[in-house]
């Protein structure tokens, strides 16, 4: 493959493998000097992996990277910056305890002699100039970065990059954390930078915005680039059509025929006018034996739903289980009324990684396994053994530490912990994140099994195939509100994406 001279950065056949996942599969795409190039694709398509390779944070397993037509190796973020490539991360690389000017000028200072005086006036002046260039002249260079909003921090990081004569600026889902006003500000900056000849690679889920500011759009799916299109007469529908068609792969074989629920059954969980961080006026209900899927973009509010329902974060509105109202911000009450929650962060909030499989299984129902303050070891082992068998978890022995299991088996044990509490409602957040395909399928069939026994399941997921395969009903969130409800035959990728992405 020969590099087109107009391409400032060219990705030629790049492959990146993670354990069990082929994140990038011989990808090729060229970014032209001075364009705004949007990269879109479903969650897990490989967008961030590609951007991390450009940032020098990940090394490709195969393929070539060309900058100005010459092959380069990007072994560290410093290498990337030396090539004029700057990636603005979502977890920003800023120093919160230092001032705006200090942060913008940090690279300049690093390039100077360590025994020189600090040119404070010059730093302030130059920082202000860099900010003014981005239309941010009002921001005081002496403010501590830790006191800024996320949007302002992003702009400070961009200002620093621009000062370093970044020729390529990568923004990976920059507006997930931004308000509408802040996003608009960011677009102004993007347009301004393009006018100055900076190439901008823009990863976003917001199709409207992509159509507004991009010169070209590349669509990714399953670690491949599907198509790169000129943004002329493109519509949101066209973009969605290019994004769908995910390879559901082996998981599909496991997909059972979902039987429609008889009408008129009583709801176990009802939620009325729920308001919480990032959520507004959300109402729905779940019946016994039903798997309700909840989908949406990263900033749709769906990631806060589990915490709000379970009472880990503040909420308003009415939540009832079997007609009994559940007070907010009280997880213990939620457990008592029969709700169990499996959070997305398995390694952090989910499991006790340093404790044994047996201890994890009973950790949510200790009173039942205690006598006069002592844990009844025999009962614990019996229950743990029963759960391990039921969930078909592959472990060497019950005393094995949870942290040493594979992701799929960890998740099975965590599910087991929920099941031991005999919940009426099971709320799952990203139930198969980071789990290999085989284990995913097993977890799906376990979930359908427990639903069949009459439990109500709420499955909050970014993975559209997962929702399609398991849920009888799918609710889609957008901008904190319900934007659609799909049932039975109408649940498909296009329908979900359209409700999640188009405005």
């Amino acid at each position: 493959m020969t590099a087109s001279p107009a391409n400032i950065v060219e990705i030629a056949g790049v492959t990146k493998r993670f354990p069990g996942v082929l994140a990038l599969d011989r990808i090729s795409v060229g970014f032209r000097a001075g364009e705004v190039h949007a990269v879109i694709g479903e969650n897990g398509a490989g967008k961030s992996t590609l951007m991390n390779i450009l940032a020098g944070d990940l090394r490709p397993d195969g393929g070539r990277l060309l900058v100005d037509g010459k092959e380069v190796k990007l072994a560290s973020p410093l290498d990337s910056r030396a090539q004029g490539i700057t990636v603005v991360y979502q977890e920003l690389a800023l120093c919160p305890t230092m001032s705006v000017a200090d942060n913008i000028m940090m690279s300049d200072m690093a390039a100077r002699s360590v025994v020189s005086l600090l040119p404070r006036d010059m730093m302030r002046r130059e920082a202000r100039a860099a900010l003014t260039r981005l239309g941010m002249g009002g921001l005081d260079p002496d403010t501590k970065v830790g006191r800024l909003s996320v949007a302002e921090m992003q702009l400070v990081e961009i200002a620093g990059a621009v000062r370093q004569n970044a020729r390529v600026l990568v923004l990976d889902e920059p507006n997930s954390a931004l308000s509408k006003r802040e996003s608009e500000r960011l677009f102004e900056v993007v347009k301004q930078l393009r006018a100055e000849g900076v190439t901008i690679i823009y990863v976003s889920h917001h199709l409207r915005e992509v159509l507004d500011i991009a010169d070209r759009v590349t669509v990714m799916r399953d670690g491949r680039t599907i198509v790169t299109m000129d943004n002329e007469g493109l519509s949101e529908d066209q973009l969605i059509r290019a994004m769908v068609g995910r390879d559901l792969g082996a998981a599909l074989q496991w997909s059972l025929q979902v039987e429609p629920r008889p009408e008129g059954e009583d709801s176990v969980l009802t939620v009325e006018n729920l308001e919480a961080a990032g959520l507004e006026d959300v109402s729905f209900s779940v019946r016994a034996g039903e798997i309700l899927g909840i989908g949406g973009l990263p900033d749709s509010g769906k990631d806060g739903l589990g915490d709000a329902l379970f009472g880990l974060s503040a909420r308003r509105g009415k939540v009832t289980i079997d007609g009994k109202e559940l007070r907010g911000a009280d997880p213990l009450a939620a457990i008592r009324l029969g709700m169990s929650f499996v959070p997305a962060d398995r390694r952090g909030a989910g499991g006790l990684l340093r404790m044994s499989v047996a201890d994890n299984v009973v950790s949510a129902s200790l009173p039942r396994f205690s006598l006069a303050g002592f844990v009844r070891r025999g009962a614990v082992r019996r229950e743990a053994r029963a759960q391990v068998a039921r969930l078909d978890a592959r472990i060497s022995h019950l005393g094995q530490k949870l942290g040493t299991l594979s992701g799929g088996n960890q998740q099975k044990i965590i599910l087991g912990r929920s099941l031991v509490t005999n919940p009426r409602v099971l709320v799952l957040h990203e139930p198969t994140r980071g789990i290999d395909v085989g284990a995913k399928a097993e977890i799906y069939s376990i979930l359908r099994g427990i639903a069949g026994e009459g439990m109500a399941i709420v499955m909050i997921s970014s993975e559209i195939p997962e929702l399609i395969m398991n849920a009888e009903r799918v609710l889609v969130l957008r901008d904190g509100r319900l934007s659609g409800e799909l049932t039975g035959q109408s649940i498909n990728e296009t329908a979900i994406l359209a409700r999640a992405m188009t405005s």
Partner: protein
Amino acid sequence: MADTVRSGARAAAAGRFELSRLLRVREAGVFIALVVICLFLTFATDAFLTSVNLLNIGRQVSLLGIMAVGMTFVLISGEVDLSVGSTYAFSGLATGMLIIAGWGLLPALGVGLFAGVVIGVVNGILSTYGRLPSLIATLGMLSIVRGAALILTNGQPVTVNLRNGAQPSVLDTFNFMGQGYLFGIIPMQLVFFAVIAVLAWLVLSYSNFGFRVYAVGGSAKAARVSGISVNTVKIWAFVLMGLLAAFAGILSLAFLPSGQAGRTGLGLELDVIAATIVGGASLSGGEGTILGTILGVLIIGVMRNGLVLMGVSPFVQELMIGLVIIIAVGIDKWTTRRTA
């Protein structure tokens, strides 16, 4: 409805912001506390506000202060050094033994200071390239260096005087460093502290190296991405700390003028860290100033002095110092925004 939730949160955040803005200059809070304590002692005792007593306080806090200056660099860089009490003992005793052995002043001083530098380098390398948390690395070094001091002195006291073999001219200068007065009134220890503090303040606030220390402690990632060598900066902070702890230990022996490896500087690291933290440095790195550290050292010194003048029992003194640490740091935590 959600709007009211949100605007409420914003108003609360704004309220806290105002308050923290008042206390933003952390030194201001510590300074006010110091002034209040001094005013109280001025009225409560006759002896407090006299030049003799104030200079005496200055002398008493000097060694603590010299070490706290070093600790400021280490804490800002995001690390901590628990080995300073041992370094203080080792370097002082080593220099003392060399003087007794008839060495000249400069070679003896040089060896003591060099020992501090070596300890600093080891601390630094273990905590960076060695990937040990500095809490663990320097905890190990605390014992190692203390043990080395015990082995070196065979556990015996070291007393620097003519009878033990010191050269008279060397002894005069050595004693002057620890016991003498500049212009017959300002204690030499205080002079050293003042000079070191001013130099450190200039370095930390006005030099490129100082900038890097803040950057490394504030966000190692940001520093690295900008091209700052995080490990190098941290190692230098440890070296500076080792050097200053060694110097303080040497001055201590010159003042007393005897020491014993089993006792000298025992537990001193906690006083040093306490003074630095009262002065506004944070254990999580990125924050702290020399001015704040000086104020922190003075608060602890003035408290000790005042409680003695008021005839408060030493047991109660200890307790009061502990309260000051908790209140001083607590005020900061309770009034500033949680998210940095």
